């Protein structure tokens, strides 16, 4: 088996294993439930183990695939000077497995597209998923017996319900399957399918404690906001299909021919892999007129449409409102779904779809990311729920990634995606550990937990350091976040140098770095340092069991080491080898003529590297200093500052009033329109129908009594009577007398003879 088939096969197998676990748990437990009325807890525990086993095996297979890839493909290792990255198409394997439907020229197929990015993402997603699965075995142990939900009131008492351990792992397995489906997908339609599937899994997982009103509302919100984004994605998909005629990313071999995919058609070797709209994009008006850039607008809009979907999925402005509410789900869900994987799916799609974005679309992406990272960072400053802080931090970091991708830093953005996955999931799992210990999410009720939960505290510290990008700029070593954040700021600097008017795209990440450092350490200090603010909870706090702390340690290790190059394992190198077709040289905007997107290799220039490194370090240091001043040394009082800047503080505390705005602009009008339509339906339409019904009944009564009864029934009854009468008469023929029978032989014969003779003589 060549590497062409072994890697896709390994990844396919790794992808399908969680589905098998899901199917087994779902069907098996439902059968047991039907027979016994309730799934026994021992079986539920085994279901969880099955899920863990499946994802663990998937991790193993993904890593094997990664090593096979490393072994069979050359890669450019590590950092290098400012030389250009190769511009041609990266090494990939693409094929279709199965054709779902073919309507006319629209072919919806299931297929794969495997390049270095896919292999890396597989390894990352499965690895983190395994850690989260193992963690969840411990975290969800409450579900292994009857649960008393204190947040739900049923007739004045708390809700008692049986535990649902197996359901959790069932949904986790399904989610893993869906997420890996997005990663391996070879065409946009399949991405969309699994996009929706991931959304559904997120709905199930957020609303796991479905009896809680807050949780079910949050699940609804997540799904609906996602759908708004998907609307834009559909428009983009339609535009693409109408113009290009295919959804596939790569070239699909069909017999001896090769059907070109999206990338090959839009970035042709004849144009030096520059993005040139194909003939399908050119509208009739543009054809005749001497249009400057035929088809360009449509291509840009297609790109922005696809990006809309990513806005929804990755919680970018303005569709970011669902992610903080999604923290209603259990912490493992937040760790896996809402920090490392599902929200990363949006970034991943932008990265996968990169060659099709025009520079103008990329600019839109960059600005969206910029705005997002700023707003989210500011809200995180004042959040008091530990998970909300992390949630806004996630939104902010996603903004970083979008920004990086938008300004041409493909490698930087994807690199940050990977490192972020590690340390954000680590942070969430640590927060879960804390919540598990003190039974509250609120930071003001915590404090001084460092002594009680050392492992959690210090691994969380590692996570905080990673997210702020702690490292030594001169020596060039640091935690994983150091490398990725630096890469982003390098690219921002390179971009700002070429595009003066868009300098804000450089200031925002730097300012964001300050804010990030501030709120992360604020969180850490509030939770782990200082005197405990709630004695009762502090006394009950204890370190989490090993099944929860071991994943923390593993992830902490990865958070530290992900940026290092260990032999062939170099994430940057692999990513560079997967650089999408034609994007390595940067681009010049056509509609926005002044826009120049720099090639990423330019950002490796020593001058830029040093400057960016210093800026990043400075920003992080400033943020940490401020946080320490406020919360560790308590030199300045945070509440005083808050009261000084009361309007701003209120703005931040109410999350920039986005929820209220959406409620007023969208939710209430929709409900009002719904009520109005219901009134119209009830009064007018129903009234009309009732009236018509009365008329029909009256008419039918008349018709029925006259026509139906007399005529039709009469005919039928008459016919029946005729038949029965005939039968009675015929019965009399059969007299039972033999002589009569024989007589009838003679008579019959004579009759036939006369008939024959009559016919004969008539001729």
């Amino acid at each position, binding site marked *: 088996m060549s590497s062409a088939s072994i890697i896709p096969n390994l990844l396919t197998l790794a992808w399908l294993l969680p589905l098998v676990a899901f199917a087994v748990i779902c069907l098996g437990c439902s059968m047991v439930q039907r027979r016994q009325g309730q799934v026994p807890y021992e079986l539920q525990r085994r279901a969880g183990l099955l899920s863990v086993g499946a994802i663990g095996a998937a991790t193993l297979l993904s890593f094997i695939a990664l090593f096979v890839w490393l072994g069979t493909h050359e890669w450019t290792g590590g950092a290098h000077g400012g030389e250009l990255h190769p511009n041609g198409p990266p090494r990939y394997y693409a094929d279709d497995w199965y054709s779902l439907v073919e309507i006319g020229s629209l072919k919806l197929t299931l297929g794969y597209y495997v390049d270095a990015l896919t292999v890396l993402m597989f390894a990352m997603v499965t690895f983190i998923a395994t850690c989260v699965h193992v963690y969840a075995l411990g975290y969800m142990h409450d579900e292994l017996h009857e649960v008393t939900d204190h947040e739900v009131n049923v007739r004045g008492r708390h809700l008692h319900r049986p535990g649902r351990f197996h359901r959790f792992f069932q949904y986790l397995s399904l989610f893993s399957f869906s997420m890996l489906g997005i990663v391996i997908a070879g065409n946009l339609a399949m991405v969309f399918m699994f996009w929706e599937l991931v959304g559904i899994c997120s709905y199930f997982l957020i609303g796991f404690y479905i009896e809680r009103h807050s949780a079910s509302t949050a699940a609804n919100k997540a799904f609906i906001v996602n759908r708004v984004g998907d609307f834009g994605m559909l428009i983009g998909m339609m535009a693409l299909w109408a113009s290009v005629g295919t959804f596939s990313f790569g070239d699909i071999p069909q017999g001896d021919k090769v059907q070109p995919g999206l990338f090959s058609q839009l970035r042709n070797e004849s144009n030096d892999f520059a993005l040139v709209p194909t003939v399908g994009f050119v509208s009739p008006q543009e054809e005749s007129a001497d249009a400057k850039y035929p088809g360009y607008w449509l291509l840009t809009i297609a790109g922005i449409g696809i990006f809309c979907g990513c806005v929804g999925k990755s919680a970018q402005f303005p569709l970011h409102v669902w992610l903080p509410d999604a923290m209603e789900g259990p912490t493992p869900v937040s760790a896996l779904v809402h920090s490392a994987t599902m929200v990363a799916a949006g970034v991943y799609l932008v990265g996968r779809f990169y060659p099709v974005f025009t520079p103008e679309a990329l600019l839109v992406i960059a600005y969206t990311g910029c705005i997002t990272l700023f707003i989210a960072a500011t809200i995180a400053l004042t959040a008091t729920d530990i998970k909300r802080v992390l949630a806004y931090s996630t939104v902010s970091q996603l903004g970083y990634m979008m920004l990086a991708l938008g300004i041409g830093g493909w490698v930087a953005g994807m690199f940050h995606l990977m490192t972020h996955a590690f340390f954000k999931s680590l942070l969430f799992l640590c927060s879960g550990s804390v919540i598990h210990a003190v039974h509250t999410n609120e930071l003001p009720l915590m404090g001084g937990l460092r002594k009680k939960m050392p492992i959690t505290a210090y691994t969380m510290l590692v996570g905080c350091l990673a997210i702020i990008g702690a490292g030594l700029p001169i020596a060039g070593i640091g935690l994983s976040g150091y490398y990725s954040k630096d890469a982003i700021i390098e690219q921002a600097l390179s971009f700002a140098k070429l595009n003066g008017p868009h300098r804000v795209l450089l200031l925002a990440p730097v300012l964001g770095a300050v804010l990030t450092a501030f709120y992360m350490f604020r969180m850490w200090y509030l939770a782990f340092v200082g005197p405990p603010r709630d004695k009762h909870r502090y006394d009950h706090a204890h370190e989490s069991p090993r099944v929860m702390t071991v994943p923390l340690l593993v992830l902490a290790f990865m958070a530290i080491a992900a940026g290092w190059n260990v032999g062939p394992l170099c994430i940057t190198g692999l990513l560079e080898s997967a650089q999408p077709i034609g994007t390595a040289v940067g681009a010049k905007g056509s509609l926005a003529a002044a826009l120049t997107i720099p090639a990423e290799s330019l950002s490796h220039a020593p001058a830029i590297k040093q400057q960016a490194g210093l800026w990043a370090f400075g920003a992080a240091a400033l943020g940490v200093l401020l946080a320490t001043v406020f919360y560790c040394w308590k030199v300045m009082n945070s509440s005083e500052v808050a009261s000084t800047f009361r309007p701003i503080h209120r703005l931040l505390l109410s999350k920039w009033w986005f929820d209220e705005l959406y409620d007023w602009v969208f939710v209430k009008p929709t409900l009002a329109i719904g009520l109005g339509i219901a009134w119209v339906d009830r009064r007018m339409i129903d009234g009309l129908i009732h009236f018509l019904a009365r008329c029909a009944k009256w008419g039918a009564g008349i018709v029925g009594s006259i026509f139906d009864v007399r005529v039709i029934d009469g005919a039928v009854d008459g016919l029946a009577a005729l038949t029965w009468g005939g039968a009675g008469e015929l019965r009399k023929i059969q007299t039972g007398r033999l*002589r009569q029978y024989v007589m009838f032989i003679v008579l019959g014969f004579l009759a036939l003879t006369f008939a024959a003779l009559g016919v004969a003589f008539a001729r």
Partner: protein
Amino acid sequence: MVVGALLFTCGVVCMATKRNLLGVLMGVELVLNGANLNFIALGSPYLRSVEGSLGLDGQLIALFVIVLAAAEAAVALAIALNFYNNFQTIDIDHAESLSG
């Protein structure tokens, strides 16, 4: 042939009108023999030319039919005996419980 036709008609009339079961069976025999006579007559070379007549086939068929008639008569008589055992009469008009 005429005799054959005569026998045939007599037999049919007998079958159709006789009340006595044995009389009916005699009528059956008459019919069969009338047909037999027909066979022989039609097989004769004097009725038609040699190629156009039944020839020896007629005689052979008549032989077979005689045997067959005898077998049939035997069976019919056995059935008549059975009938007598059950009904104590050979008046076939009494056999009318199966009707309608």
